[in-house]
């Protein structure tokens, strides 16, 4: 899967928009990428848990309409990390752009 290496950054970017639970995050990712990133939905969960373990996300149980769901939001460290990764990606993409034929 092409996006595997960048999944973390994409998830951070999506959660930066506002707190969301796993299903919501997958939907947002699909919508914002206009269907291009359509990964097996389950794969977000190990990634989300890992991002939380690293202090980039925090989560808590919320009851919504009688359902109990785990909501994720960005921490300050997560915000900073997102900034760094965005910057890295832009530099990388610009470099590739310069090397490839027009």
């Amino acid at each position, binding site marked *: 899967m092409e996006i595997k290496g960048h999944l973390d950054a994409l998830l951070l970017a999506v959660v930066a928009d506002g707190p969301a639970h796993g299903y919501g995050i997958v939907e947002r990712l699909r919508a914002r990428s206009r269907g291009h990133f359509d990964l097996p939905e*389950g794969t977000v969960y190990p990634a989300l848990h890992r991002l939380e*373990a690293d202090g980039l996300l925090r989560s808590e149980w919320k009851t919504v309409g009688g*359902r109990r769901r785990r909501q994720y939001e960005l921490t300050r460290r997560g915000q900073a990390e997102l900034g760094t990764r965005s910057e890295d990606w832009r530099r990388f993409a610009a470099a590739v752009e310069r090397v490839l034929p027009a």
Partner: protein
Amino acid sequence: MIDDYLGELLERLQLPARRRRRILAEVEDHLACAAADLHAEGLDAEQAERAAIERFGPAHELAQTFLEHEAARRGMRAAQRGAFVVVGCAAAGLLDAMLRALAGGHTWSADGWTALGVLLAGAAVTGATVARAREQARRVPPSESADEPRDIVETLGRYVPWVRRHPWRFAATIAIGAGLALAAAHSLSEGGFSLHHLDRQLQAAGLLVSVEALAALLGFAVLGRYLGLRSDTGAAAAEP
């Protein structure tokens, strides 16, 4: 069908109960939402469940990913704790030697030098281990999750609520116990007790126990955070 999926996931997730419960709850919520949306889009209930599971991905693959992450985390935690134990023992020994030298008017003994040497070596090992673990974390980031207890006090507190409510009393108890144990070991190594001059021996023993207990308690207070014995929040704030 979703139940079957969850059942398979439950079987394959060889993880601590709390983590397993959380993962299953999140997956169940996700599949339920997905099936509901698909049903609203026109699929019948059974088709919706099947499609939701299809889009979610195979249970065995998901379980595998979780297990791989857990293995990486365990590895790093074990390495860190091993290093911390070395530093902890050396630090305790050093503190002990210092306090005994002060209390008994003894000169700095060979014990002290040994403890200092072990402490420095232990600190070097710890530093190297933590640095290496951090580097590995960039690839497969394992570390303490919000779910996992942050220190020994929290871990024990799960099983013995008294420890969680009164971490400092727990520390004091352990310190006195350690003091008694160390004093007993010390007096045994010096030939043990005899019935002669029992009162003087008891006095000396009492002083020794106090000093050793103080050393253990100070060690916990000063170094506890760095040794993973206690964390900043929670435990320290719990007691008035």
